[in-house]
């Protein structure tokens, strides 16, 4: 242990014997601890919500999508399917066939423009009467005033020739499901079996895109790289993160803003550290002069006070981490803050402690405390030994 650290440790250990220094040291340590704990709890709260939002994102979005770089159809859908099937972690790959048309109820009175596509997730059960099933979005069902079991008709923008001239391709569907969407997704107005989608879009073979689901959505980037490397030119591969980039950015921005705002508590606590260290510099001026007379370098005196700042920061940060992490874990496990389950996706306010964030907060608090000690440490380094000793007589 260098003598600078030795002196700093002793100063800190003996400061509790001097009431005024002890009080300010305690305030400095507690201030940092409160700041660190507040930041950990705030981010844990935010992470709790955001983790669930991200989980929903991963659940409701295709993990990989292969698009044509130009045009609206894949040049070789079969090859894309083969490559996706061979890609690491891919558990399912399905074509995308979609288009636009009009949706109307059985009477034909309520008509609404609609986006249709083949069923994205989960099979649709056929009704006993042979009418193809459809899954309507909640919004589309509300616009048409239909419910589960109702008949709807979808008319494609594509036409076919009939004895009376060109007429739109139309299919009668029975509403098998109404999909309650969330703010996190924008589902098509109507999902239909693949063969109906192909009929409506006029795409008997091939696909406009291919979607794949992965066993582990977190490995989407690696899988995307592998697929992109295997595909010839003329295709684009996007992951679920890229598809939800605006929302992900909003979540990150929200966290950054909360961090910056709550971190101000740590900055304010660091001002206490400045006054604490400055007081110690003034109080120990004579001793610093003596150390210089013994051959100490001015930089070593600065190091003593920077170490003190680090020690105060370290103790405050450690206390804050223990309290913040402990409180977050307990709040989450004991479901301390309930939420109305019919309004939210979950029954209690979730808290999630991310070790990386805790490390970031700890490093920030420590760096702020050491940074706060820089000014008084520089003052210590500027002390003239002769003057310090002369004035202390």
């Amino acid at each position, binding site marked *: *242990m260098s*003598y600078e650290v*030795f002196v700093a440790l*002793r*100063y800190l250990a*003996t400061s509790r014997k001097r009431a005024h220094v002890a009080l300010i040291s305690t305030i400095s340590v507690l201030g940092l601890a409160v700041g660190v704990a507040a930041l950990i709890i705030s981010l844990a709260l935010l992470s709790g919500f955001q983790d669930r939002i991200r989980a929903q994102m991963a659940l409701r979005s295709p993990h990989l999508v292969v698009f044509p770089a130009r045009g609206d159809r894949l040049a070789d859908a079969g090859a894309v399917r083969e490559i996706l099937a061979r890609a690491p972690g891919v558990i399912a790959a399905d074509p995308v066939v979609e288009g636009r048309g009009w949706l109307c109820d059985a009477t034909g009175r309520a008509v609404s423009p609609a986006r249709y596509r083949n069923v994205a997730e989960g099979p649709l059960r056929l009704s006993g009467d042979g009418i193809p099933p459809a899954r309507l979005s909640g919004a589309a069902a509300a616009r048409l005033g239909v419910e589960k079991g109702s008949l709807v008709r979808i008319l494609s923008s594509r036409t076919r020739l009939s004895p009376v001239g060109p007429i739109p391709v139309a299919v009668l569907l029975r509403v098998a499901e109404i999909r309650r969407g969330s703010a996190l997704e924008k589902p098509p107005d109507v999902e239909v079996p693949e063969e109906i989608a192909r009929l409506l879009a006029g795409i008997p073979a091939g696909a406009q895109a291919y979607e794949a689901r992965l066993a582990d959505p977190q490995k989407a980037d690696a899988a995307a790289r592998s697929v992109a490397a295997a595909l010839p030119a003329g295709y684009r591969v996007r992951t679920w993160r890229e598809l939800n980039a605006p929302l992900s950015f909003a979540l990150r921005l929200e966290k950054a803003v909360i961090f910056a705002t709550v971190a101000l508590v740590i900055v304010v606590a660091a001002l206490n550290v400045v006054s604490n260290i400055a007081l110690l510099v003034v109080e120990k001026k*004579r*001793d610093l*002069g*003596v*150390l*210089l*007379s*013994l*051959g*100490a*370098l*001015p930089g*070593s005196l600065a190091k003593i006070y920077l170490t003190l700042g680090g020690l105060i920061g370290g103790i405050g940060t450690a206390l804050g981490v223990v309290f913040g992490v402990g409180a977050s874990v307990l709040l989450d496990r004991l479901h301390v803050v309930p939420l109305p389950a019919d309004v939210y996706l979950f029954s209690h306010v979730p808290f999630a402690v991310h070790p990386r964030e805790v490390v970031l907060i700890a490093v920030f608090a420590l760096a702020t405390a050491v940074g706060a000690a820089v000014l008084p440490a520089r003052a210590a380094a500027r002390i*003239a*030994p*002769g*003057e310090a*000793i*002369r004035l*202390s*007589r």
Partner: protein
Amino acid sequence: MLAVKAEHLSKTYAGEGAPVTVFSDLSFELEEGVLTAIMGPSGVGKSTLLHLLGGIDHPDTGRVEVFGQALEELAPRERARFRNDRIGFVFQFHHLLPEFTAEENVAFPHRIAGVPAGQARRRAAELLDRVGLSERRAHRPRALSGGEQQRVAIARALARGPGLLLADEPTGNLDVDSAGAVFGLLEELHRERGMTTILVTHNPELASRCDTIYAMSREGISPAAGSSGRE
């Protein structure tokens, strides 16, 4: 060979009102191995002279050489190193660091020089033994008497085996018996180690035991009557 050579020193402090000139154009030389007392009334700059000779203060004008080395020519790092290796200070009020034990205080010059802690403490313990305080090495300054504190301060000053010992009224704060004992110790160590020792004192009896005596006044510094010192 000269241990100390100071030429045309002047020093002025910025006082609360007008600047205070402590001395100007002061010159002083001292041979190696001499035990010297500097006497003079308060305020003539005896302590300031010691600070300048020890390199813990800078003269406004003039030049100080210690063992042939001009202090002003040394970079701050070299100057600190020189002070650590070659110069020892004893102050009137001992100026021991109150948070540290006697042994830790004496070990400081070694720690500053980069000697490992264990070795530094062993050497400090030996020195404390030499000044008769081996039983008190774990005591903090507050638990020591004035004489003991000053003996610890002497041990600290001698820790690195300096060639020049500067003692600023080392007995000024002690009773007669303690002052005699501390001065006796200084004298003994001076002879034993062959150092050059300059001590400031107001005590004519103690000064008379030194090899030379210098008298300092507003006019300058000169060998006292009957002293064999060189100006």
